[in-house]
């Protein structure tokens, strides 16, 4: 193994001197994992994710991870990391698009089992017809699986969010899986300046004995322990136990808020909160919107921007408060269903303020002019 020094998360995130590297999003994944003290990673190819896990394989070969292998399908990969996580080690994997859907049954199972797995979802379209191009539709399906969800705007976000995801996921009061989502190609395959901590530093190791559930290692009490026991009889007692278990997953998501504030420095980032019209977006749509907002402001329009970084937990209160003083909220998206628009509508008091779209999908880019047109219409 490569010799690295364990430092506190706070040091790694906020204090260590950072160095700028001109790298792709896939390389940012590698740089995050290099410093994450991951024990085991499992990979499976799918464009646009594959390169990130090739690179994780490369640093395994260099001695930054203890174990790495290629699984046989996404469903199996997600089960393999689940088994390893129950065995008490820190794990990482990544997928996207059809891979996400192939593995789908595992995500609620991860959350229900309180597994602090970190998975990068490098999103793309889903069949049919087949598309490898950017599209965030898979995120619509993931919203209610119980996992925490962060959405990266850039390679810098991807690097930071992956590292921070481990720390948030493993808090004993949270102990839930975290999906770090980034838009395929737009983030994975483009190069930007990314500020990274020194490569000889890493996170403290995972402590399975602080977990809210016993590790499956025959070292921890109680010995008579099934992960996870059924409460499957047909009676009220069993239903109530299952219901309380599910509530506990929701509660754990709520507890994560505090750590998202601490480490991601808020669930949202706002520019010009006082504006009459607000664009609310996540992922790379924030970048497209930022350009449009800049032009619109130059032209004297009263417009602001809200970048949503955390989708689970969702910034309910933040958005409700912002929406109160705004006249109109524009929600541009990279998918056809408009899941972010739905989420925002569920949070605000007056849903008539929320204007869904523009939306593009199937790999189409979003020219800032298209967002600008919408801004102009809404400011008129």
């Amino acid at each position, binding site marked *: 193994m490569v010799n690295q020094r364990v430092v506190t998360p706070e040091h790694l995130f906020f204090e260590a001197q950072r160095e700028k590297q001109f790298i792709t999003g896939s390389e940012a994944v590698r740089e995050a994992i290099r410093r994450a003290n991951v024990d085991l990673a499992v990979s499976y190819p799918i464009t646009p994710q594959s390169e990130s896990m090739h690179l994780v394989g490369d640093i395994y070969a260099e001695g930054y991870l203890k174990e790495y292998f290629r699984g046989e399908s996404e469903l199996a990969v997600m089960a393999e990391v689940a088994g390893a996580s129950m065995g008490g080690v820190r794990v990482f994997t990544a997928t996207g698009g059809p891979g996400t859907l192939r593995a789908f049954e595992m995500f609620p199972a991860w959350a229900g089992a309180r597994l602090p797995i970190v998975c990068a979802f490098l999103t793309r379209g889903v069949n049919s017809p087949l598309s490898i191009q950017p599209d965030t539709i898979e995120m619509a399906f993931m919203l209610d699986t119980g996992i925490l969800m962060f959405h990266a705007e850039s390679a810098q976000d991807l690097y930071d969010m992956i590292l921070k995801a481990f720390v948030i996921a493993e808090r004993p009061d949270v102990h839930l899986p975290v999906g770090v989502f980034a838009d395929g190609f737009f983030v994975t395959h483009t190069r930007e300046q990314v500020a990274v901590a020194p490569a000889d530093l890493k996170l403290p190791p995972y402590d399975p004995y602080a977990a809210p559930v016993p590790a499956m290692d025959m070292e921890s*009490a109680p010995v008579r322990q099934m992960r996870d026991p059924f409460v499957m009889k047909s009676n009220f007692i069993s239903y*109530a136990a299952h219901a*309380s278990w599910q509530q506990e997953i*929701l509660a754990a998501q709520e507890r994560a808020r505090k750590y998202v504030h601490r480490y991601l420095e808020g669930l949202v980032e706002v520019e010009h909160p006082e504006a009459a019209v607000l664009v609310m977006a996540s992922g790379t749509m924030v970048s497209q919107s930022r350009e449009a907002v800049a032009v619109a402001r130059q032209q004297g329009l009263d417009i602001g921007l809200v970048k949503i970084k955390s989708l689970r937990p969702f910034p309910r209160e933040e958005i409700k408060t912002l929406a109160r003083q705004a006249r109109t909220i524009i929600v541009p998206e990279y998918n056809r269903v408009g899941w972010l628009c739905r989420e925002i509508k569920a949070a605000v008091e007056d849903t008539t303020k929320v204007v869904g779209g523009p939306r593009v999908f199937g790999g189409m880019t979003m020219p800032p002019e298209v967002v600008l047109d919408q801004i102009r219409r809404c400011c008129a």
Partner: protein
Amino acid sequence: MTASEYRVLPGPEGYLPPAAACMGVMLPEPGEALVEGKIVPEEDALQKIAEKLLAARNPVFFPGPLVLWAWREGVAEKAKAVVELVEAAGARIIPMPDYRPKYPMINPAVEINPNHPNLTIWHNRIDVGVFVGVHCHYANVALKIIRGGTDCYTIALCGEMGHEDAMITLRDVDAAKLRRLTEVVKTRAQARPARAAGAHERR
């Protein structure tokens, strides 16, 4: 984030009450505790726990696997501190040896189970119940069920970060903190010896 108005009080709270965390109750930071949904200094919570234990008709401790089984170093010391606290409080012990659902085979007179803790509380008419050494997930599952369907006053002596669904929760509880609580209980019991002794006699 604002402090929650939601109060975590003994039930029965209803058919399926929400998790207190979803109502805005947040876990305490080090040095703090939660009493009925409000953050208080830890010392205040120690006093309140002692008061509740001594005033109880039938206080019962529910030690869980983390303290019942001497599975790693330090557990025996913590177990001893729990037993001393139980004695000082004039309470009883009903263990939670593991977490597998046992309904309907459970003998509620001798054990408690996180999947149906209400059965043990009803059966033994427990008015104050204390969780210690239970893995957080299972403690939370149980505490919600208890608050939903019983009038038991729940206290969680958590080794990690505490439990919103207990009426009182301490965090970072180790042997030293248990001994400190025992002292508080003893001091208060001396001020009102009749109560503690009374609880003993009724068994």
